[in-house]
């Protein structure tokens, strides 16, 4: 009887394992390209390149990672999707494995939105430093002649981290925006195609546009000018400043193109305008 139970248990685990393994493969259009270890190296997560008609090309991983504070470690699970420039597109939670704050309260939808915004921010202050350093900096000594110290750190934490989930935010940011980003860009670069280019230029993410813009030659700017103008309308200052400097002289010699540039003037920041104005006049 004991043997039967043991045999059944083994079969059950194998089935779960197979099922689980099947579940980790997002869909038949995905192929594993690399592995993403958690920051402590305990978990190894597979990363897939996927391509579908509706979503286009993207990268995916079902992430499992430990999140540790000074006294406690726990496991966090998340399905993560990056675009071709290695920028986070979105994430999904796994049923039964909701994110929690203060170790036991489930995230609200607002918390998820805030987390997504922070994880999408390549320059999130919360991700840039070690959490310990943050906390340490927050204890910056108080002057005896001044009432308080700079609230910049506290303010940043408040703005960027879900309250009660500082460690989770920090760990996930590091994992999603760390070395994986460079690896994904490299993968895109080594498989770069016209299709990729158009997908990148059509992305809603300015930094993703920039990734493709930096590969364009002068002729491409002329050829894709309408798409470039569409990007300019998104008001991303860094991207528009880059475009303003990159536009070839042939654009400014063509009256129709010049007029088109004037038509997007209201979408531009002062930095971009300062570069364009010299060529437009």
């Amino acid at each position, binding site marked *: 009887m004991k043997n039967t139970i043991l045999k059944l248990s083994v079969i059950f685990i194998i089935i779960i394992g197979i099922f689980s393994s099947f579940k980790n493969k997002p869909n038949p259009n995905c192929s594993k390209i690399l592995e993403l270890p958690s920051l402590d190296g305990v978990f190894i997560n597979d990363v897939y390149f996927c391509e579908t008609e509706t979503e286009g090309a993207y990268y995916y991983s079902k992430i499992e990672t430990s999140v540790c504070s000074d006294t406690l470690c726990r496991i966090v699970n998340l399905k993560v999707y990056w675009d071709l420039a290695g920028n986070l597109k979105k994430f999904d939670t796994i049923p039964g494995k909701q994110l929690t704050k203060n170790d036991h309260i489930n995230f609200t939808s607002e918390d998820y939105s805030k987390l997504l915004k922070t994880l999408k921010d390549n320059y999130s202050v919360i991700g840039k430093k070690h959490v310990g350093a943050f906390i340490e900096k927050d204890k910056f000594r108080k002057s005896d002649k*001044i009432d*308080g110290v*700079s609230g910049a750190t506290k303010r940043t934490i408040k703005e960027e981290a879900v309250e009660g989930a500082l460690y989770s935010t920090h760990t996930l940011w590091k994992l999603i925006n760390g070395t994986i980003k460079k690896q994904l860009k490299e993968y895109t670069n080594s498989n770069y195609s016209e299709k990729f280019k158009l997908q990148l230029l059509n992305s809603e993410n300015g930094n993703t546009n920039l990734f493709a813009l930096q590969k364009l030659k002068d002729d491409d700017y002329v050829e894709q000018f309408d798409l470039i103008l569409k990007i300019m309308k998104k*008001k991303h200052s860094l991207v528009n400043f880059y475009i303003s*400097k990159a536009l070839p002289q042939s654009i400014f010699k063509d009256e129709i193109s010049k007029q088109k540039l004037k038509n997007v003037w209201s979408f531009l920041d002062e930095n971009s305008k*300062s570069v364009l104005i010299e060529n437009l006049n």
Partner: protein
Amino acid sequence: MTEKNKCLKPIITLLSILLFGFQLYSQEFLIETENFSNKGGWVVDPQFVEQMGSPYLMAHGIGKPVKNAKTIIKIKEKGNYHLWVRTINWAPGNWEAPGKFKLKIEKKTFPKVLGTNKNWNWEYVGQYNFNKKEAQIELLDLTGFNGRCDAIYFSTKNIAPPNKKNELKKWRNKMLQQTKSPNKTENFDLVIVGGGIAGCAAAISAAEKGLKVALIHDRPVLGGNASGEIRVHTEGIYGYFERILKMIDTDHYPNGSPEAYDDDEKRMKNMISYKNIHLYLNWRAYDAVSINNTVQYVDAKHTSTSERIRFKAPLFVDSTGDGWIGFWTGAKFMYGRESKSTFNEGWETHGELWSPEKADNFVMGSSVLWRSKKLETVTSFPKVPWAIEVAKDYAAVNGEWQWEFSRNDLSQIDDAEQIRDHMLKAIFGSFYNEKQKIGNEKLALKWVSSLVGKRESRRLIGDYIYTLNDVKNQVDFKDAVVLEKRSVDVHYQQNLNNPEKPNFLSEALFFRTSGYKLPYRSLYSKNINNLFMAGRDFSCSHIGLGGPRVMLTTGQMGAAVGYAASICKKYKTTPRAVYQKHLNEYMKLVLSSSNQSQNN
């Protein structure tokens, strides 16, 4: 001569006589407001002389009208005079000008509200009949929000003075009867312009080696960005010059803290202990001339009395930050962000934010620090509609280093007043927003600097241009005189990457390193034979400036330059020859700095 001309001749003669006679009869004089004997609560602002033409008085009352500035003027000829003041509305728009003031002569307050010009220009005040040879003039601040008055012009003729830059300069000199050259000349072994940490360190090390040093500084206190007027704490390491730098550095207080005053006191006490350092506080250099690529002299003017002195020396140090001495004397310089290929300084992680593909002028910005405090009683703060266009809905209680402004179309030198004013709008607007929050009824704006603290401007080109590669490659220069461990730290405006952020906040990008060394060859001009530079204007790329731009590092530059000047004096030679011919002796001097004692 034709008949027609014959008829015209007497008419022209008569008109000429009338015009000449009228000119002879007319009386006019100009009063520079910085010359006022009692400045009340107004402050002298000499930061933008090169752009708008003169130091001026500013009512920096952070929202509370300041006390009247007063002076007694002497009138040569009694009579009825037309009056103009040169002023500006520093925040023009669909609201009342923030910096309004009035003019008062004796008991008459002129009804005209001044400070409403869109740009620096003359505003007509009215007429006044002087029936005595002396009269008291007063500037009455109405708002406490940075009203400005450059000068007051009196004329029996109703003709406004010129305002175009060059024309105004000539006219001003004529009105003030200024000769082309200063009447007074002083001679030194070394003339240092700029009394920030770099300039102070250069003065000490040179003085300790027996040089007669002039230190010219346009503020009443030494320290530059570290002074109690700007309040940035000194950062970096001491390198070989701990003993010298500890005399002039600051505690690591939170930026903006009034603790900076204690360090001002320490610095001044130490500086005046050197008998051969001749301090010229409140003197602003306005010109320098070179002949055969050798600086001959620097001319400086007192910011309050307008007295002028010509400073002569065989050697000069440009610690002005903006590289003015180099600029005036034709030293080669760089400004802006080089393309990433210029010095091969690209960093893929940060891309365009770090080093752009194509060069631009988007350098690191300037800061204005500020702080507020909760008082015991409820306090009010006026509405500031002219500030909200910049602050928008941002709210804050104080401003640290991140309160920084740069824009590609704004020069940190030529547009510095606009940059300072942008920061003032950001501060007053953000504080106003904060003040509206429940619980902040007792919150008061305590201190806002009126001075703009710059990070980057002109970089004079030396025999060596310091770049990121020297950091990356840990280059061990044989003339390494400055040591640093601090990360290369380059700033960008937050709104560049995130449109939701206000345009007056910056963020730092850090290239971490275990340490790096700077060569002496970056501390003297490539083409001006007797010009050193110490401070942010040393020879480096935009990215190369990122690490060594902090004040203990620039202080090291100063100390190194002061010692080099002593070698120059000893051998009657140039800064370059110190490297080429006397490097061993110089390096021994630098390395033994901590053991040397005062020698004056």
